[in-house]
């Protein structure tokens, strides 16, 4: 079975299950007695064991098996879940992760140093004393079956017609790796004798291995039970078989009981649900699709939009009612298609956020700090390509918050704060962007220190330092090599990193802002576009050329009287709602061969553009209009050009460059 195709499947599934284990182990730390959480870890470990076994990844199988045993012992009450055991489980998880990494990199398990871990595991993973009906309800008779009235009818008919009705309970050996397959063989064998009326758990659950080691069926047959029993016993990996007669008198009682049970179960389920709200996520129905296939689908949609824009342009020249309607309809359909494809590409931020509780737990332990991580809005969805890129910058910011932000417990109590620090991770939609905030209640950023450091490094003069706004001063921490940390730890403080964070986020078309108050904490606000490939943009003439400005960066478009443009520190500024903002002449900045003509009526059209909190007025020529544009890259040869972020093809085939507001403001 060592086949590349299965390998990929194995990696994907293992990754999901490892993440699931990680998440639930963290929950277990807080709620060590929650059976549903234990079961969840157990199931994931079990699945990993199963699939690794079939791929012959022996180390993975071994460790996963031990994890399973530990949890089984916890579940059966033979072992109390202590923090030490959870640590060991985390250790196993890390080891499984590194084994998976080996498998991803080399296609096989390279590490061979698990003997220490295994011996540690032995202490806890002792096999539970043999228990014939482990995992089964205590009842062994027909009471265990949930018989409904239809099945009751069949059973009665069968008995009246002289058939034998038996219930069969089969237990598999605990070493059995492919339980579903084994159960299938048992089912096949039983079916040779008669018809299976009912199975407990359901056939579907058995196929999906959602059972422990035993299952029961009710069978209608003409054969004697001894024959069936012997046949089943011949199948390997069967621990025990128990066949009993079905008592008709008990039937009525069981059916009634079943009804009652259903009622109480419903209530119980409700309670359980309330308890587990937000803890256990039922997997949604989904399929895995190669991201490249989605990319090509997206490209086709992009082409469609370009053609649609082109037809729209033609329509303006020759008016025709039927054509107008069709074009509008085409427009609606392409918009919907675009939305649908975009949604397919969207994944919840949960995929990234799930890694953080563990990181915070480990890092805060190492730093000797107590930190509570609070995540909200993990269900916020964002384009898949962004998800893949955003993890590292976020981890960096969280590390910074732990290392530099949050103080040691005694420092916190001196400052009159609660001993446990808090880091809040918040995600939400805001118009066409997704906002991620990282908020800590630590010591905050010392602006004075940043400014004096910037002066020391000759980045600014002392006079300039006095004139900087808070927001501008904070921006220095994004400069390469800028660190005010007094000591360098292995987590952070080397002055590399923050500039990488900023570059990364800006390369995704996003922005980072900082709000911080010395003594009470820091808040990083990251704003990212929903999607990278198709955006709404304002097309405008500049000189004789045409450029696109992303709508997401535009606050407002206004006519400014020339007389309002003032000079400040040799730079042009205008007054915008009581705030002096830079006035940038785009035709000069873009070195247009034909400049923007001086307007006669004394007004200039300006786009008020924003980069996070910073604003600027950009002078533009005639506005062409708002369009949905498809972003194309300029190719690697022009990757050094920062002032434009890409290009788009207009309806007539002409190219309009997309201005990168982040690099203009």
């Amino acid at each position: 079975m060592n086949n590349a195709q299965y390998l990929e499947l194995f990696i994907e599934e293992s990754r999901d299950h490892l993440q699931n284990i990680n998440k639930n182990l963290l929950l277990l730390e807080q709620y060590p007695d929650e059976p549903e959480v234990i079961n969840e870890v157990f199931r994931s470990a079990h699945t990993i064991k199963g699939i690794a076994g079939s791929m012959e990844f022996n180390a993975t199988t071994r460790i996963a098996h031990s994890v399973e045993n530990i949890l089984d012992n916890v579940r059966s009450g033979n072992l109390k879940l202590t923090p030490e055991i959870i640590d060991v489980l985390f250790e196993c998880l890390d080891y499984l992760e590194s084994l998976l990494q080996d498998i991803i990199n080399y296609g096989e398990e390279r590490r061979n140093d698990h003997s220490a871990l295994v011996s540690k595991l032995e202490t806890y993973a002792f096999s539970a004393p043999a228990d014939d009906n482990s995992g089964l309800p205590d009842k062994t008779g027909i009471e265990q079956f949930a018989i409904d009235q239809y099945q009751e009818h069949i059973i009665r008919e069968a008995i009246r017609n002289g058939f034998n009705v038996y219930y069969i309970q089969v237990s598999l050996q605990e070493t059995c790796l492919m339980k579903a397959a084994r159960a299938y063989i048992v089912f096949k064998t039983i079916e040779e004798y008669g018809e299976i009326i009912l199975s407990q758990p359901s056939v579907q659950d058995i196929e999906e291995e959602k059972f422990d080691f035993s299952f029961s069926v009710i069978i209608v047959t003409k054969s004697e039970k001894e024959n069936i029993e012997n046949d089943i016993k011949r199948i390997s990996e069967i621990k025990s078989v128990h066949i009993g007669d079905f008592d008709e008198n008990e039937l009525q009682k069981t059916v009634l009981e079943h009804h009652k049970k259903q009622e109480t179960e419903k209530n119980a389920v409700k309670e359980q649900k309330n308890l587990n709200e937000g803890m256990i996520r039922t997997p949604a129905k989904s399929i895995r699709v190669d991201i490249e296939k989605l990319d090509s689908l997206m490209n086709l949609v992009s082409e469609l939009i370009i053609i649609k824009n082109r037809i729209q342009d033609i329509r303006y020249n020759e008016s025709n009612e039927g054509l107008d309607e069709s074009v509008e309809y085409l427009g609606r359909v392409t918009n919907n298609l675009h939305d649908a494809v975009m949604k397919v590409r969207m994944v919840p931020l949960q995929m990234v956020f799930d890694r953080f509780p563990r990181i915070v737990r480990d890092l805060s332990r190492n730093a000797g700090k107590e930190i509570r991580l609070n995540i909200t809005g993990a269900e916020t969805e964002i384009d898949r390509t962004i998800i893949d890129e955003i993890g590292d910058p976020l981890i960096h910011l969280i590390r910074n918050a732990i290392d530099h932000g949050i103080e040691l417990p005694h420092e916190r109590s001196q400052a009159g704060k609660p001993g446990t620090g808090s880091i809040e991770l918040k995600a939400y939609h805001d118009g066409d962007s997704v906002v991620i905030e990282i908020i800590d209640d630590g010591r905050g950023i010392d602006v004075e220190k940043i400014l004096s450091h910037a002066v020391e490094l000759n980045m600014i003069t002392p006079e300039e330092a006095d004139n900087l706004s808070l927001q501008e001063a904070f921006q220095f921490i994004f400069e390469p090599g800028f660190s005010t940390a007094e000591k360098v730890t292995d987590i952070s403080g080397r002055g590399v990193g923050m500039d990488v964070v900023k570059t990364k986020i800006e390369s995704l078309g996003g922005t980072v802002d900082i709000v911080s108050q010395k003594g009470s904490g820091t808040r990083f606000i990251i704003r990212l576009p929903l999607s990278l490939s198709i955006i709404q943009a304002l097309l405008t003439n500049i000189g004789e050329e045409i450029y696109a400005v992303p709508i997401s960066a535009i606050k407002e478009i206004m006519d400014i009287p020339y007389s309002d443009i003032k000079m400040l520190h040799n730079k042009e500024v205008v007054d915008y709602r009581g705030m002096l903002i830079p006035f940038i002449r785009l035709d000069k900045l873009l070195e247009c061969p034909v400049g923007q003509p001086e307007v006669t009526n004394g007004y200039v059209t300006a786009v008020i553009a924003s980069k996070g909190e910073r604003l600027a007025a950009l002078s533009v020529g005639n506005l062409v209009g708002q369009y949905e544009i498809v972003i194309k890259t300029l190719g690697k040869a022009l990757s050094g050009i920062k002032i434009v972020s890409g290009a788009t093809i207009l309806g007539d085939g002409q190219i309009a460059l997309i201005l990168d507001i982040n690099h203009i403001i």
Partner: protein
Amino acid sequence: MERVTQKPYNESSENQQFVVFDIDGKIYGINILLTESIERMHRITRVPKSPSEITGVINLRGDIVPLLCMRKILGYKDKGYTDLTRIIIVQFEEYRIGLIVDQVHDVLTVPSDDIQLSMDELTEKEKVYISGIINMNEQPLMLIDIPKTLEKINIIDKQGV
């Protein structure tokens, strides 16, 4: 266009093919393996703050392709475009660019042995961009070194401006 050196077919010598084009009356060649297509002139969009050798970008059937002006690179005066002006689309590693040339002739097959690597007759400017010479009837055919050209005008490994 005919080959001068009609060497007898030699098994040890592999043949190479070149796209032959004109710049200011001189003839140049590009290894055909690097070329993708030859296009007529397109509408060019200027890219601000780009190196002066980059004329702009074109829409090549839905893809954005930057253009290099070969006249400028080889040190000739700009003389505008004519009906004969062509764009040779070349693909080198991840770089896909178009070269604007005065005129494209045909494809020439030459045994590798005929390529001279000595460059004594070349001007200083030419030496930078030429990787070899093939002697033709009237004048030498100069082979453009694409990787070196891209490096020279700072396209390769350009980090920020």
